C-alpha cells in the first residue's frame, strides 16, 4: 500500500497491509504535526505532493527495502492538504521476522521518503507561513538521487 491522500490517514489500514504469519515484529511510524518548530508556535501544516511521482518513488523505496532486509514488508501513506496539530502527515508500517530488521528498515524508509519523495510542507504561524525543507533533502546542483 503506497498512497498520497487528502483525507486523514487510518493507521490501522496501513498496519494491516504488512501483516503476515512470518512477521515477529511490526513497527508503525507516524510523523505528526507538532505545535512548534524549535520553540516557535506552529498553528498547523499544509502539505502538497506531486502524487503521480510520489507513489512510484515510494514503490522504489519499498523495492530497495525488500532487497536489503529480506522478509521485510513496508506500506506508506502521505497526507496532503491542511493538517491540525496532532494529525499524522505520514504513516509507515514495516513488518519483519525479527525486530532488529524492523527498526532498521523503518528508519531507512522514513529517511528515504524525506530525501526522495516529492512532498512539500508549509508551516502556518500566527503571523504568516513558510515552506520548510527537510535536512535530508538533496541540495542544489546534485544529480538525481
Amino acid at each position, binding site marked *: 500500500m503506497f498512497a498520497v491522500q487528502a483525507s486523514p490517514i487510518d493507521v490501522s489500514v496501513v498496519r494491516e497491509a504488512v501483516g503476515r504469519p512470518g512477521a515477529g515484529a511490526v513497527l508503525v511510524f507516524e510523523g505528526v504535526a507538532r505545535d512548534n518548530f524549535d520553540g516557535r508556535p506552529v498553528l498547523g501544516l499544509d502539505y502538497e505532493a*506531486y502524487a503521480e511521482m510520489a507513489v512510484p518513488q515510494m514503490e522504489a523505496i519499498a523495492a530497495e527495502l525488500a532487497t536489503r532486509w529480506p522478509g521485510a514488508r513496508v506500506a506508506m501513506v502521505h497526507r496532503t492538504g491542511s493538517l491540525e496539530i496532532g494529525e499524522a502527515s505520514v504513516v509507515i508500517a514495516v513488518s519483519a521476522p525479527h525486530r532488529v530488521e524492523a527498526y532498521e528498515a523503518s528508519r531507512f524508509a522514513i529517511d528515504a521518503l524525506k530525501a526522495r519523495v516529492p512532498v512539500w510542507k508549509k508551516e502556518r504561524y500566527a503571523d504568516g507561513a513558510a515552506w520548510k525543507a527537510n535536512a535530508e533533502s538533496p541540495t542544489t546542483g546534485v544529480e*538525481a538521487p
Partner: protein
Amino acid sequence: MKIHVRHFAVLREQRGCELEEVEVAPGTTAAALYDLLFPPGLEGQLPVLFAVNQAYVARAAVLVEGDEVAFIPPLGGG
C-alpha cells in the same frame, strides 16, 4: 516542441500556476528550461532537482516533445 511543466510549492506560488505548456527548441535540457522559466536574478535561483515524466533525471537531461517536466524544490515530506 511542446513541453508540459508542472509547478509545485514555492515555485507554483512564484509562477502563479500549477501547469503550463512551453514551446522550446529541440535539444533543450531540463536545466535550460529551468533557467528560462526561473531566470537567475539578483536573488539567485532556488536549488532544485529535475524530474521528467515523474522520474528524477540529471540536470543535463535533454527534453523531447511531450515530456512532463517538474522542478523539485527542497523536499518537506515526512
